[in-house]
Every structure is written in C-alpha cells, then in structure tokens.
C-alpha cells in the first residue's frame, strides 16, 4: 500500500448540547482548523470521506446537506457508517482513497449531534426487528427490555465475565474510570472533565446493572472531528512532522447476546473479541511490528465503559491475556507510564458516537506529532495503536500509526 500521512487534525469542543448550531455548522468547527493549520483550502482536497452514527439524529445521509459546508462541493464523496466503529471505518475509507492512488489529499470527518436526536430509540432500533420476533413467538419481553436497556445492557455481561476470567474486581473499574476522568481534564476537546476524580468518587456512584456503575459509563456528546490525509510526496510540504498510517484492519463477527431475530449467537464469549485480535494481528503485520508489547508506545482503544480498558489492552495484544489489571496497577497505562493508554480520557469522557472512533486515530496522531498539549504522554511516541468498537461488540477496527512511513 502507498504510504499515507495524517497532516491535519481538527476537533470541535464536545459538550452535551449545542442547540445554537445545526449539524453542518457544528462539523465546520472541526473542519476549519484542519484547513487553517495545514494552510490548505478545498482546492487542494481531492475527495471527502464522512460518516456518523446513522439514525440517531433522524437525518438520512446528512452529508448531502453538509458536505458543501465542509469544502466538499464538486468532490468525490463517500459516506461510511458502521455503528460505534463508524469514525474509524470512515478514516479507513479515507486512507484507502489515498493508498489506492486514486486521490492524493483527502479530507475525512465524523460527527454526532446527540442533542438533536433520540439516542435510546436509536440504539434500540438496532434490535427492534430481533425483539419483534421474540415478541411474535411470545417470548418474555420483560427480560429482553430489562436486560438490554440501552447499550450498557450488553456490556454488563462482558464486564462480569471478564472479572471471572481475569480475577479483577469492580475496584479496578473504579480506578480505571478515575484515571480516564483525570486524563480528560487535561484534554481541551473532552466533554466530561473531572479533575481530581478518585476511585472513591466513582465507587460512590450508583450501581446501574451489576457490575457497572454510573461512573463507569460515558456521556452523550455533540461534537465532530476532521483530519486531512495525504500521500508521501505531499506530506512533507504540508506538515513538519506528519503521523504515518502504518497498518489498518477491520474484522466483523456476528452479534453477541441476542442473535438475529432471536436466534442463538455463536459469538459465545463477549470478552473474547476474536475479531479484535484478528484485526490487530493484521494491522501490526502491515506495520512491521513483531512485538506490540514492546514496539507500541501508546494506545487509544475505544473505551465507552471502564472494564473495556482492560479487555482491549489485552485484545490489542499489548500484554498477555489476563495481565491488564496488574499492568494497570503498576501504572503502565498512566500518561507518564510505559504504555500510556487513553491519555485523551477515552470515549468514557467524550462520546459523539460517530466521531469517537476517528478521534482515537486523531489522538494518536496528535501524540506522534507531539501536539497533544497537557495530555501529551511523557515518553516519546514512535508507534501508537488506535481502535474502534461497534455493533453488539462484534465490529473491531484497528489502525497503527507511527512517526516514520513504512519502508520496503
């Protein structure tokens, strides 16, 4: 694949309600800084690749409306939507546009304006048809609705099994949440900032559904992210220190917990995340990374719930299975640690859903460029891994970034 560089990154501030702007205007706040910082204008852009979580805002293909606001008029356009993974699936689309040789410089962006929409019904609509069949065959609807109230429904099952397999406790989740809240406080784009948050503060929040507490969950945000990607021959002219795309992969399994139309699911163990390991292996191989535990300097996994910090640290092959809680205890994942993980504060602190997975790449790029500011990792970042999660924890996407392009 042709080398691809991230040369511009822009993000809007993320808050719970931006009632003063419409969707194209909100996204423009992420796009404008990309152009300002690179000195490029839409004339320099060959294509636009976009997406958001479909069906959350009640707008069908909002790019039809917005792309002109973002410099996309008369450009090739591609809308990609895959659920929670959307932001990274979109970025992968943009990477392939450049890697294919079809285009040289591509603007990519992802967004969500949750305050316009009905997130709960949006999420429920994932399974409406499946639940309808359970209803049709006179299943116990109460158990379905009680145990699947929103996205948390699935993740509690995952968290409980991970605890049993790894031997970690809810206390780990409390401390992970506190670390992420503190990291977010250093990130100017983050939504939920709680400087000085402690594990005790998190532990004092209400248990929603065992084993996850309110303090282990993510907010609903309005926000957007944009990036400019370009080919190797152009990158040096645009940015002094671009971040390079070294590897990418996605992998899809079937949904866990409730199968299609109420059928059984072969995705038996929701903590196994075989698709994540599979994608990570492929992406590392492309990047020439043989031992991610040593060669990866920083990770931005997709963590909307606290327990996922441990699961994805392991499934991204950054340690042996079951070791994540111990490494966390040793401070490895801290901003000052050996393998800083989610210095941005993660999706747990900022969740404009469609944008979230692209923000993982954007955050890795900022860290490699040395432009993360207060949440810049202490160690020098040569290689970083970004991750996206979607569907019913059955879509995984992985992107490996580095400070040097691939050779050979």
């Amino acid at each position, binding site marked *: 694949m042709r080398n691809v560089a991230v040369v511009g990154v822009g993000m809007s501030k993320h*808050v719970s*309600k*931006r*009632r*003063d702007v419409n969707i194209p205007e909100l996204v423009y706040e992420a796009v404008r800084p990309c152009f300002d910082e690179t000195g490029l204008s839409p004339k320099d852009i060959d294509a636009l690749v976009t997406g958001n979580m479909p*069906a959350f805002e*009640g707008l069908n293909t909002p790019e039809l409306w917005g792309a002109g606001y973002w410099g996309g008029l008369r450009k090739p356009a591609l809308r990609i939507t895959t659920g929670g993974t959307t932001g990274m699936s979109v970025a992968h689309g943009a990477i392939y546009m450049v890697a294919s040789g079809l285009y040289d410089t591509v603007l990519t962006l992802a967004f969500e304006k949750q305050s*316009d929409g*009905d997130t709960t*019904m949006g999420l429920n*609509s994932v399974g*409406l*048809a499946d639940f*309808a*069949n*359970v209803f049709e*065959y*006179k*299943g*116990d609807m109460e*158990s*379905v609705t*009680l*145990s699947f*109230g929103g996205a948390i429904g699935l993740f*509690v*099952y*995952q968290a*409980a*099994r991970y605890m*049993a*397999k790894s031997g970690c406790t809810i206390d780990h989740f409390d401390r992970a949440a506190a670390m992420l809240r503190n990291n977010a406080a250093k990130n100017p784009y983050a939504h939920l900032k709680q400087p000085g948050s402690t594990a005790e503060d998190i532990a004092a929040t*209400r*248990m*929603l*559904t*065992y*084993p996850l507490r309110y303090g282990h969950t993510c907010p609903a945000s309005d926000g957007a992210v944009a990036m400019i990607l370009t080919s190797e021959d152009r990158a040096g002219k645009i940015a002094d220190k671009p971040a390079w795309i070294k590897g990418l992969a996605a992998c899809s399994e*079937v949904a*866990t*917990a*409730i*199968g*299609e*139309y*109420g*059928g*059984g*699911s*072969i995705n*038996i*163990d*929701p*903590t196994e995340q075989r698709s994540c390991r599979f994608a990570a292996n492929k992406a590392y191989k492309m990047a020439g990374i043989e031992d991610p535990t040593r060669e990866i300097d920083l990770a931005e996994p997709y963590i909307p719930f606290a327990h996922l910090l441990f699961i994805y640290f392991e499934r991204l092959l950054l340690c042996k299975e079951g070791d994540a809680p111990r490494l966390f205890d040793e401070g490895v994942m801290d901003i000052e640690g050996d393998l800083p993980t989610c210095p941005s504060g993660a999706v747990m602190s900022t969740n404009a859903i469609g944008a979230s997975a692209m923000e993982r790449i954007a955050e890795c790029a900022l860290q490699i460029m040395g432009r993360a500011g207060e949440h810049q990792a202490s160690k020098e970042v040569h290689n970083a891994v970004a991750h996206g999660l979607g569907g019913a924890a059955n879509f995984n996407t992985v992107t490996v970034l580095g400070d040097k392009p691939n050779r050979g």
Partner: protein
Amino acid sequence: MDKKEHISVPGQWPLSSYTWKTERFLDKYVEGLKEKKILGLKCPDCGTVYSPPVSICAKCHTRMRLGEEADWIRVSEMGSVITYTVIYTDVAPGGLKDLAPEERRFFALIQLDDVDTHFLTELKEVSEGEISVGMRVQAVWVDEPQGALSDLAHFVPVEWSI
C-alpha cells in the same frame, strides 16, 4: 453552552411504519417447547448446532435446512452460565430508581450442553453471592406449555452434579 432559547424543529422517525420479515425458523423450535423439548438445528455444512435456531450459518455461509428432519436434534436442558448480570435499577417516572436487594433480578447468557450458541434467559432460585460464571444451570418449564418461547420459563442452578 449558552442559556439563550434556540429555535429547533421537531420530527420523527416512524419506526412503526416499517415491516420486518424473517424466515419461520422458530416455528419448529416452539413446537418442541410445547412438548417440553429443547431443539437445536445443525448446520448441514460445518455441523455447528444452534439453539435457538437461525436461518443462515454465518460461520460457513450456508442456508440452514429448516425442513430437514435430520438436521433438528433434541438438546440438553442443562447448560452453563457464560456470563450474567444483576439488575440494580429500573426505569421509573423521572429517571432511574434503585431496586431493593429482594427486587433485584438475574439474567444470564446460557450455553446448553451439546450446543454451539448462547441465548439470554432469567436465572431464579439463586442469590447474588452464589451466582458465578461457569455455574451449572437447568431449564424450568411452565406448567402448561403453549408452544411459545416463554414455555422455557427460566433457569435455576443444578442442585446435583455427576
């Protein structure tokens, strides 16, 4: 961000205007439940056993043979807890309300013996201290099965083991 009243326009996504269609892969399964039998459906290509059944095997991209007697097998009423949850809160007017310990309910993903899939069910006759991943459980039937998914009322811990 700001306190000013902003103009917004209301709208709807009328999900009630949609129809979804699915194959009748649960017909024979609920017929089995009526006779207090749990049936599984075996993929004719890779042999994966689904219970409840499905119409397509994702693993090997094969259409399941819903009309083929030989592919339907009776499976065990016993299985293991893959994972579980305890419901601590419920939706109430004005937000969530905490449930008292005796009101809390248990749900689990269960994998039946001889089956390659899991499904969601309620666990009863169990306490928060007892429930665990890997716990052996067995099916409890309603007294008079109707040929409905709810005939398989819930699961309880297995009191004995071999």
